[in-house]
């Protein structure tokens, strides 16, 4: 989780990812950010977030994204 938060901080350093729950709905992360994020996740966690998982609910908070990474790791 810490590693994920540090990736997120590289994209938007000024956001409190521990508490933020509207990263996509609140327009903090745009589509460019999401793609950068997916690239980083593929590198660091060795999982591919395919397009079918790219829905706001999976990216609205660091926790939701972390849950998705774990789910994908389990699937693999």
């Amino acid at each position, binding site marked *: 989780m810490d590693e994920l938060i540090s990736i997120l901080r590289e994209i938007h350093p000024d956001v409190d990812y521990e508490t933020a729950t509207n990263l996509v709905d609140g*327009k903090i992360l*745009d*589509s*460019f950010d*999401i*793609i*950068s994020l*997916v*690239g980083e996740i*593929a*590198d660091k966690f060795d999982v*591919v*977030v*395919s*397009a*079918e998982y*790219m829905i706001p609910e999976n990216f609205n908070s660091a926790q939701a994204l972390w849950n998705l990474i774990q789910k994908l790791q389990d699937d693999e």
Partner: protein
Amino acid sequence: MLFTSYEFIGFVILLVALYYVLPKKAKWPLLLLGSYVFYFFAGWKFLFYIAAVTIITYVAGLLISKNKKIADARFAELKALDKSGSGSPEECGKEARKRYKEEQKSKRRRIMTVGITIALLILAVVKYTNFTIYNINGILSAFHAPKRINFLTIALPMGISFYTFQAVSYVIDVYRDRHEAQKNFFKYALFVSFFPQLVQGPISRYGDLSKELFTPHTFHGRTVERGLQRVIWGYFKKLVIADRILPAVNTMIDTPENFKGAYVFMVMMFYALELYADFTGGIDITIGIAEMLGIPVKENFERPFFSKNIAEYWRRWHITMGTWFTDYIFYPLSVSGPMLKLGKWSRKHLGEKVGKRLPVYLASFIVWFTTGIWHGASWNFIVWGLGNFVVIMISQELEPLYSKFHKRVNTDGSTVYKSFQIGRTILIMSALRLFDCYRDVPLTFKMFGTMFTTWNWKIVGNGALLHLGIGRADYIILALGTILMFTVSMIARSGSVRDKMEKKLPFAARWVVFTFLLLIIVVFGAYGLGYDASQFIYNQF
């Protein structure tokens, strides 16, 4: 049957009345019948196209859903066998189950690919055949070849770009397991053909629209009232503003050699106003009609001209198209195997900074190319799309510079700076829209250039603008109409105007306002003798 025709108004009144009179079971079939009657009036031959797209995507969705159900059941069965120890690991172990899951998913992907490819091929053939021939002839001409290919006579079926995209999104969403396939063919046919949004969108998703579309709504005065109010507001924008300014735009772009310099700036501004009033007016009518039937349709605009930059503008203009391209092209492309490989390669060889952006920009380039060509089969639209890409890319690259500037100069809450940003957005977007106006790309660039070489700004005050096919009275109506539209947009920033009216005004007073608006449309709308209430601009896309 144009939205602006008396026949259409009569058709809607009859349909809404029948909808609330008929028994529950007959409501959605009535909408399907109404949608096909509406489409029939656009040309009976076009019915074949919409029927073909409907059948193909319906079958694809059904096959995907069926496979998913069977595969899930078999997967659970294998898991149970493994748990009980009654099956061999080769048959039902974790690895075997994973392989089975992948095989089935790959089967579903193939069905999806075939379904959407056929649907998109139909669109491609009717929309891009002549454009392809035009380009082949251009190449033949460049090589001085004596032969030329004759153009084909293919009429573009009304709304094909919209309903094809809607049907394609349905198949992909079934594949992505966002919802199950619709088993009832006729219900699915209604989703594809729902008449208010058939002409120019919004491009709805099955998951958003289907439930309310098939629910038998009972009559609620308030719902019908609100829908009707929105329809009236839409007609106001279309008939009082868009169609009134249309002759001036046409005069200036039909004979461009006579209208250079400051006139081009006028084309920019007038066309921006016309397009905004036309498209948002059309969407107001669409959403209003659906609302009268109790069916909520997704909003397509969020005051785009108040955006601070182009990327934000595109999140607020034609929203359902933008999200369609993001969800079904940009994301899948960006996270595809080759693109992730490219990202890795470029980070290794070109450095972290460039490497990270290259795949995103490449995917973005493809999306904007596609957005351009979706709007129309011509180089004008392709260059327009790529122009948007260039502007967004430049703005992204300049981000560090903006950050430095904002650290030094505090612009937080500055109305002047915000106005500058909004003004900049309006100017850039309006300049790009010149590609919609002039007949080809070189002419558009040439005309844009004349704004800086032909210094004739005196036309603004010497009465020359009164010779563009619209007179002084038209300008006064346009100015007042635009002020009203702007004021409503300003009020809407803090919530729906109709909600506010409902809270503050009694029923009778609200209807005095809307009756007055209706009177304005009747008296000042550009229709009737001497006018030809024109087709909506987005119909041609």
